[in-house]
């Protein structure tokens, strides 16, 4: 994990914008999003529902919703994806990006066996014969910790438990030795002990295959010992970006701060949780200036202008009044 910052990025997203068409009206859902993921690095994309994190991921894999317009640039291992033809993009994305969805029940095929789905992917992207593909599929299932792997090739998704389904998803995602894995809340639907198993497996896969990983989550703590950096999104904007450790312990943006304060802390006799008032604004009803301003305890007239994402201490933050690590809260008295 040394010198991550010097290697070329596996994924380089610049000024990504996604606009949906709702009732014939253009509605922006992601605006001006730029970030990079380097080889061997895991980046958490954090936010609540409606913040645009899943739309960002769908734009990267080239599966935006119908009628969506995607602007900006997405480079995978130095190749621009947005200008590729649909066919080329599918070929490149299918083999170089592995995707793990939140709900394997709806993202895996219900009437094809596990083996058929794996072999199909393997034979589409790698030059393998029928027999080779089946052997490789069994190896993959074994690797992701599925017992009796060869026999399991002939089972259907509905016969598997939630944890096992997610293991099949992971096997599929890594089957073609991708450069990048995008995981969209892969453990949210799982029980805690199974979530821990799946996170361990992802961690192993990541170091074994040297994968770059983009991990989408609403709960930063879940990935705190898993990801290196975090990108926090709010209402289609990146509001803060930096090392996970510093974002968790000393967030600069008031939204990030509220998000972390909302998680009950361990073994503390805290009587109440820190609150962010209100809720995420609905799509198409974002405030004009800083989009967080109506909910922000620190907002004033400056916040009527949209702030830029600027470097601040170890991180980057989109805020006119970032929380300062050094001066702490006492400075507000003066």
């Amino acid at each position, binding site marked *: 994990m040394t010198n991550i910052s010097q290697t070329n990025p596996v994924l380089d997203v610049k000024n990504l914008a996604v606009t949906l068409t709702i009732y014939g009206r253009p509605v922006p859902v992601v605006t001006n999003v730029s970030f990079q993921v380097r080889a061997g690095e895991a980046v958490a994309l954090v936010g*609540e*529902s409606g913040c645009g994190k899943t739309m960002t991921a769908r734009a990267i894999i080239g599966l935006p919703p119908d009628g969506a317009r995607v602007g900006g640039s997405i480079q995978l291992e130095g190749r621009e994806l947005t200008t590729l033809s649909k066919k080329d993009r599918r070929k490149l994305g299918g083999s170089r990006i592995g995707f793990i969805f939140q709900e394997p029940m709806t993202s895996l095929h219900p009437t094809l066996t596990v083996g058929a789905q794996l072999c199909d992917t393997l034979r589409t992207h790698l030059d393998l014969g029928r027999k080779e593909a089946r052997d490789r599929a069994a190896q993959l299932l074994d690797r992701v910790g599925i017992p009796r792997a060869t026999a399991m090739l002939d089972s259907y998704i509905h016969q598997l*438990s939630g*944890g*096992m389904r997610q293991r099949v998803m992971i096997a599929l995602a890594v089957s073609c030795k991708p450069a990048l894995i995008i995981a969209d809340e892969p453990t949210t639907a799982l*029980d*805690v*002990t*199974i*979530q*821990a*198993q799946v*996170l*361990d497996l992802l961690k192993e896969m990541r170091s074994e295959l040297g994968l770059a990983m983009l991990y989408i989550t*609403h*709960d930063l*703590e*879940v*990935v*705190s*010992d*898993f990801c290196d950096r975090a990108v926090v999104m709010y209402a289609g904007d990146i509001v803060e970006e930096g090392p996970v450790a510093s974002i968790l312990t000393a967030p600069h943006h008031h939204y990030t701060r*509220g*998000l972390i*304060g*909302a*998680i*009950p802390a*361990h*073994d503390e006799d*805290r*009587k*109440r*949780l*820190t*609150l*962010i*008032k209100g*809720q*995420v604004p609905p799509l198409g009803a974002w405030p004009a200036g800083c989009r967080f301003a109506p909910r922000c305890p620190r907002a004033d007239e400056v916040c009527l202008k949209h702030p830029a994402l600027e470097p601040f201490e170890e991180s980057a933050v989109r805020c006119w009044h970032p929380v300062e690590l050094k001066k702490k809260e006492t400075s507000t008295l003066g």
Partner: protein
Amino acid sequence: MVKQTTASSPLLQVEDLGKTFGQKPPVQAVRGVNFSIAQGQTFGLVGESGSGKSTTGRLVLRLLEPSAGRVLFRGNDLGKLGKKELRQERRHMQMIFQDPYGSLNRWMSIRETLEEPLLVHGLLDPAGRKQRVETLLNEVGLPKAALDKYPHEFSGGQRQRIAIARALVTEPELIVADEPVSALDVSVQAQVLNLLLNLQESHKMTLLFISHDLRVVEFMCDQIAVMYLGQIMELGPRKAIYRTPQHPYTRALLDSIPGRGKKELPRLKGEIPSPSAIPPGCPFNTRCPLAFDRCFREQPALYELSPGHVSACHLAEAEGQPQGRPNNIAMSPGTGA
């Protein structure tokens, strides 16, 4: 006649509660569960899917008929009450469900939703009902204008506030909250948790709080029971459970909280067995990293480790006193918190 509680007895007492669904094969959802809740306390039931925590909550409110055991609420055995008496008691026990989209009647305005329990129980006159509904709406943080709107006009968090107001409108003594914040976003979840705490203080309510989220349970509850395959594995005051857990399952659960666990036990292998095929001996023996031969032969009794803290593990035998059932020892007023 319906008895009133005396100051010393717990508000809710659950004795050897059991529930079996179906026949071929029978699903043993809840087995031999004992606990009691003192007035004003929050009692947490925590466990993974299939642990029987939701079924227990429903048995307590008698939304399901138990197959075994009994539930004493305010000293009355709910199983012995007639239909009419049970309906009277229901006024004092209410429920908040997980899914705020499915639990509100979409054809009823918020005013109708909140007034209905009062009408069912024949409480207050029209002016009094109006007053009560408006006060509660204000207490859960919604504007008066919300009264004439319908559920679809509200977000998930607002709907959950409405569901809470509806549960409180008859001034119940016990509220069963089944995963009340699991469907909500983090920032809204925090708002609803704080609201529940505020209301609990102002209304002096007793709460049975069911959740799979160990962080939320720690924040909310005074007493906690950890369930696995229909049984209570460990029960005790919050600090005992989180600081000095004894049962390997409790320890594994705490270790599984990402970014937090002490990781002193190896990661649990495998998955939860089906409640229709519970292993003999200790139900946790298929996954327990510390299991030894006795665990496969003999089901562990509950051992008391410290006042109010019990664990169903053979390894606790050396440390603790044998204890038949947890409700006999728990919840004298000093054991909380």
